[in-house]
């Protein structure tokens, strides 16, 4: 039985998948153009207007490449690994509210009251794809790349979790809808500015910094892109992947990036709310579309910073990465949580 509600739900769900996956090709072209601009070049600008069709050409090229599986590789796991990288971040996007509600329809695929926890647990599964992909290739460099990737992901997941915890403490909820709703009381109610409590401002700023750094490491982005390393590891865990399987790894990385940006937006930057543009009580079509626009703009700004950072900073060595993660960021994030707890207690518990 298809009722109107089910139909709306379906549309919202498809749109969610569309946003998560649809931003990927846009990001690939943005990445390449911005990289070129920073290096005083033009970048790919031949396919379509301003090179906008370049992702399509890339996709067609990936599609027609030879599908190669190394001898003595584990065929089943070699096949599954790219999906294990691609699918979890796409599922994690389901609980992100990417807009205010239109009528009675909330612009969020699944409204879970443990949304943030769900997202974290789903994201923690993505490690398997990297590790398995490296192992199944029957190539020692792939294996080492996979090991590096998984060690890095586990290490920075702690900082990530603690930084997310700060936002949860400010909102006093793990429900994404509530977290966003609490940040719709003016720009100072954003969690990055302390969630309405100015004494918690340093916690918010430190929190977003830690969350973003951990997100860079989680997505294997520069300056933490150690799993891929020409000199030591050839191509890392996807050395032995070609054609669409490689494209899956590649897209998985970008979907994870989009997902992380959406998480940062939702937890710290007020989600779809921007004072003067969106009104939380406005459930009309125009308000809904504006809120989606605001959310996308924020997400895109964060994605842009990803790219910007990539072409600015030199990369870490692996021991430096581990030092930073365990000796630098982890104590800092623990201290941040403690500080927020102290501030919360002495200002009456409710910020």
């Amino acid at each position, binding site marked *: 039985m298809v009722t109107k509600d089910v139909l709306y739900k379906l549309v919202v769900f498809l749109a969610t998948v569309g946003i998560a996956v649809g931003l990927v090709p846009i990001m690939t072209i943005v990445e390449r153009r911005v990289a070129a601009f920073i290096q005083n070049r033009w970048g790919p600008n031949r396919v379509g207007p301003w090179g906008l069709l370049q992702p399509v050409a890339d996709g067609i090229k990936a599609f027609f490449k030879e599908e190669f599986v190394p001898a003595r590789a584990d065929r089943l796991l070699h096949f599954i690994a790219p999906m294990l990288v691609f699918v979890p971040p796409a599922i994690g996007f389901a609980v992100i509210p990417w807009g205010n509600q239109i009528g009675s329809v909330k612009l969020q695929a699944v409204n879970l*009251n*443990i949304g943030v926890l769900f997202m974290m*647990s789903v994201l923690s*599964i993505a490690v398997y794809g990297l*590790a398995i992909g490296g192992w199944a290739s029957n190539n020692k460099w792939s294996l080492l790349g996979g090991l590096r990737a998984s*060690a890095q992901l*586990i290490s920075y997941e702690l900082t990530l979790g603690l930084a997310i915890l700060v936002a949860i403490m400010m909102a006093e909820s793990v429900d994404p809808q509530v977290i966003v709703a609490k940040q719709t009381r003016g720009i100072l109610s954003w969690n990055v500015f302390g969630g309405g409590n100015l004494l918690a401002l340093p916690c918010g700023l430190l929190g977003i910094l830690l969350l973003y750094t951990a997100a860079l490491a989680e997505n294997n982005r520069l300056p933490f892109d150690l799993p891929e390393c020409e000199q030591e590891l050839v191509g890392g865990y996807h050395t032995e992947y070609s054609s669409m399987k490689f494209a899956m790894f590649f897209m998985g990385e970008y979907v994870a990036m989009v997902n992380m940006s959406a998480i940062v937006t939702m937890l710290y930057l007020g989600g779809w709310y921007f004072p003067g543009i969106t009104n939380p009580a406005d459930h009309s079509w125009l308000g809904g579309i504006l809120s989606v626009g605001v959310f996308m703009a924020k997400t895109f700004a964060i994605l842009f910073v990803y790219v910007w950072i990539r072409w600015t900073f030199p990369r870490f060595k692996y021991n430096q990465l581990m030092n930073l993660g365990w000796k630098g960021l982890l104590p800092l994030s623990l201290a941040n949580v403690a500080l927020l707890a102290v501030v919360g207690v002495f200002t009456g518990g409710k910020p």
Partner: protein
Amino acid sequence: MDYVFLACALVSCVASLMVVRSRNPVYSALALMLCFLAFAVVFLRLGAPFLAAMHVLVYTGAILVLFLFVIMLLNLKEEELGREHPDWVKGALALLCVLLFGAIAVPLAREPRLRFRLPPPDEGFGGVEHVGRALFHQYALPFELVSVLIVVAILGCVVLAKRKL
């Protein structure tokens, strides 16, 4: 009939069998992951969403990854895996396990004191707030004791791993 529970039970049983049956330890670890995911769904079905999320986050996302890590670092070859036991030994052990399960399950099923219906859970049962309140009010002392236990375990690891301090 609860079909979700049935499906999860089936998946977890098959996955558990694969954990034991598989010659390749990497496959075992992956089957264990499948098993854990099925558990998480059962927790969700029982109205314990926090427990489900933590189960995936801690067991699947962290502990099992470490297992996989060690397995991949060792990367055992076929000849290093050791010889398999003959079939009759395996059969006998399996039979013993089934009997053991029966020995526990049959008396439990016959127990009249266990035949009651649970009262419906409170609003928000199994959510973050309820679990947190229970852990930090009602069970605060055991919770803190567990954390002491974990500290002791960590210290033990450090002493074992690092002989020269």
